[in-house]
Every structure is written in structure tokens, then in C-alpha cells.
């Protein structure tokens, strides 16, 4: 699990995160929801160490990320799989090379073992046989799936996803959501999904945090969300006519 305690973050005079505390549970898809500019991406980037916090603690299964040496932070990062909004695949590498890259960097596996692992991950994301394709030849959904395969190839303990459904059609988005949930359950990992896609919330929202103006305004699961009286949350989640009707029913 990942626990954040009293996180404060400023960008100049802009107070982006205000006293944020939350527990992201193992084996569950933990969702962070909120409007654009609410601080979701900053929080994800803080969790992976791309932004430094001004105060507070980030605990990965009890290990305080900011209290350990940079060398150990790097080791801890090897246990984090990250799915970026755009996939962040390396342009000059094929699908196979992209997925194999962490194995080449950090393991002493033989070529055959590495290929077996790559093929296993490709099968998991339902992209068998696409090893030789280049990122430019992939559709949006395929790019995300390859990125998921690369994120899980090292068998991470933590999986962080930054808006995994952005730019995808609803059907593909649900496939990606289900895949993330399936991997979370199967490997019992701590997954955090940063999203403003309400379909995702309804599909996989097990432990939801609503961030508004840099503060946590609401916590709960998807059933509690449907019955919540929090005005800001309802204004955000049930913004569309479809969801307003769903709420009424």
C-alpha cells in the first residue's frame, strides 16, 4: 500500500496541494478524480518522485520515500510501473524492445527468458504477435496496452496510471480499465489511477479520492459516490445529462 501524509506542495506562490492525506490500498484500484488543474497529476508526479514535496510523507509499504538515499529511491522506483497519459513508448524501439527495455537494464535474464517474459506480457494485454511493430504503427488503445505491458514486465508492487483513457473511445477505454483492474487483482498490487473519466469511476472505482482545489474533498467507493450529498462532488461527477439521470434513478 501507499500512504501519503499531510502533503503540501507549492509552485511559487501557487499552493497546489493542501494537507493531503490518503491511503492507497493493495489489491484495489485506487482512483484519484478531480477537475483539470485540481492537483491530480501533481500528486501522481509527487508519488513517483518527479516533483519534490514541500512537507509531508510518502510511505511505500512503510518506507518513507523522501527519507531514503537517492540510490535506494532508484531501487524503489524499479518496483513502480507507470502508465503515462500518452503511453511514453520509446519511438526508436519496437514493441518488443520497449517492453524488454527494463529487463535489459535491471535483470540478468537470458535472451530467451526475456523474450518469454515479453510474450507473456503481450498475451496479458492481448497483443500477441505484435512484437515487431513500431510505436508509430500502433493505435491509441494498442499504445496504452503496450505501455501497460512495459509497466508490468518487472512485476511491480505498485502501478500508477495517469489518465489511462485519455484520447480513447469508450469501448477501448473500458478494455483498458478492465485490464488495469484484472492486473491489480491478479498480482495483488497497489494501483492508483488518475482520471476524470466517469465511465472509469463507475467501472473500476473501488477506493476513490476526489480532489478539488488541491484538497481532498471526499473519499469512498463507487456505491457511496452514487449516494453522496457532497455538492462539489456531484457537480463534478454528474455534470452530464446522462449521469444526472443515473443519479436520479
Amino acid at each position, binding site marked *: 500500500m501507499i500512504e501519503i501524509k499531510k502533503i503540501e506542495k507549492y509552485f511559487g506562490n501557487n499552493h497546489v496541494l493542501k494537507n493531503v492525506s490518503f491511503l492507497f490500498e493493495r489489491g484495489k484500484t485506487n482512483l484519484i478524480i478531480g477537475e483539470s488543474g485540481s492537483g491530480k497529476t501533481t500528486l501522481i508526479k509527487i508519488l513517483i518522485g518527479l516533483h519534490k514535496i514541500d512537507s509531508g510523507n510518502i510511505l511505500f509499504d512503510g518506507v518513507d520515500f523522501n527519507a531514503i538515499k537517492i540510490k535506494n529511491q*532508484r531501487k*524503489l522506483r524499479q518496483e513502480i510501473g*507507470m502508465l503515462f*497519459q*500518452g503511453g*511514453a513508448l520509446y519511438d526508436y524501439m519496437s514493441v518488443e524492445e520497449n517492453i524488454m527495455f527494463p529487463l535489459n*537494464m535491471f535483470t540478468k535474464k537470458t535472451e530467451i527468458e526475456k523474450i518469454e517474459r515479453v510474450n507473456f506480457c503481450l498475451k496479458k494485454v492481448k497483443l500477441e504477435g505484435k512484437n515487431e511493430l513500431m510505436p508509430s504503427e500502433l493505435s491509441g488503445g494498442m499504445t496504452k496496452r503496450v505501455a501497460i505491458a512495459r509497466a508490468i514486465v518487472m512485476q511491480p508492487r505498485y502501478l500508477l496510471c495517469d489518465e489511462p483513457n485519455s484520447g480513447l473511445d469508450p469501448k477501448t477505454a473500458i478494455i483498458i480499465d478492465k485490464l488495469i483492474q484484472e492486473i491489480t487483482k491478479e498480482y495483488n498490487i497497489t494501483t492508483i489511477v488518475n482520471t476524470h473519466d466517469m465511465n472509469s469511476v463507475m467501472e473500476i472505482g473501488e477506493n476513490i479520492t476526489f480532489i478539488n482545489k488541491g484538497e481532498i474533498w471526499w473519499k469512498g467507493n463507487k456505491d457511496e459516490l452514487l449516494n453522496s450529498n457532497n455538492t462539489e462532488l456531484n457537480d463534478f461527477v454528474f455534470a452530464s445529462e446522462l449521469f444526472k439521470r443515473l443519479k436520479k434513478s
Partner: protein
Amino acid sequence: MIKLLHHLGLYFIMMKKVINKPENWGVFRRQLALEMEKVGLNSVVIVIILSFFVGAVVSIQTSINMDNPLLPSYLVGLASRDSLILEFSPTMISLILAGKVGSSIASELGSMRVTEQIDALEIMGINSANFLILPKVIAAVFFFPFLIIISMGVGMLGAWVGGLSANITTADFMFGLKYEFTPFYIKYAIIKTIFFAFIISTVSAYFGYHTKGGAIAVGKASTAAVVASSILILLFNYILTDIILS
């Protein structure tokens, strides 16, 4: 002034990350081979074409300016040799490489930054500056001197062809080429080139690595990399010439 100091500070912080032991030597060797091809081999053709024609033009212009019966015609070979070895090959070719290789390094790293590929490396626990920039710097520092030597050779070939069209005989041209040749000039050119290669690769990498924004920012980073590298090449050309040849 504060902005300049800010850039200098960031440059040295980046260089501290760059100059480190690679995470995995096998992967590093592969990256280095790739960069040798991108930074060095892919520039051979442009260097050959430019050097040949500039050599020819230098030779023709020298012969026109020395159209005096008191001046021996072998001076055309001598003047072409010295201008090619001392200035054209190391400095002008480096300026051209700053445009070609420098913009390519800056735009490659800039694109990787804006598409979060560099972040992806960092999250994996990889020192991204070391992984991406060190092979480029080594490839440039190792390969540019070869490009300059090629440029000198081809430039002199061009000068000979230009000389022929200006009625300078091969014998006179060759005599001038060998006349009071100072081998140290080649060393001087190579020393300059190594400095220029380091400037081009690290300054361009700096601008690319610190790109913020989108496609426009990548373009701006690329332009800034070429401008800054060119200015620094000219500045260091002056400093090195003063130190080495004075």
C-alpha cells in the same frame, strides 16, 4: 545576467548527472553504437560535399587574388592547405555540425521530454541524463575529429580541382601543399574539434533535456541549441587559438 547564471547552474547540474558510470554496460554499448551512426556516420556525406566545394572555391579565389607574376603559383596550394587545416575544417565544419547534429540532439531530447519518455526513464530508476546524453557526448567527441580529418583531405582534393580550373599545375599545387608544412597544425585542429564536439553535444543536450511545453517549445529549444553552440564555438575558437598558437 541572472538568467545566464541560472542556465549555467542547470547545465552543470545536468553534467554532474551525465558524467556517471552507466547503469548497464551492454545497453550503453548499444546506445553508443546508435549514436556513432546518428552523430557521426550520418554526417560524412554533408562534410564531404561541403569540404570539396569550399576547397575548390578557396583555391580559385586564392589564384585570382595572386594573379601577379612576382608571386609563385605554388602559393595557391599552400594558402588552401593552411586555410583548410587551420580554420575551415575545424571551425566552419563544426559550425555546420552544430546546425545538423546540435538541432537533431536538441529536438530528439526535447520531443522525448514533452512526450514523457524521459520521465518514464526516471521512474524506472534510470539516470536519464547519463543514459541519453553520455553516449551522444562520447560519440561526438570520438567521431568529430575523424570528420574533420576527412574534411581536410576532401577539401584539399577540391582545392586541387579548383586549382586545375585556374591553370595551376598539379606539380605546383602539390609543391605548395607540402611547402613548410607544420604537422602541429593538424593537432591544433583536432584539439579545437574535440572542444567543439563537447560544446555541440552538451549544449544541445542541455536545451533539449530542459524543454518545457509542446511542439513549439521543441522547435525553440532546437533553435536555441544551434545559436548557443555556434556562439560558444566562435568564442572558444578565439580562446583556443590564442592559447595554442600564440
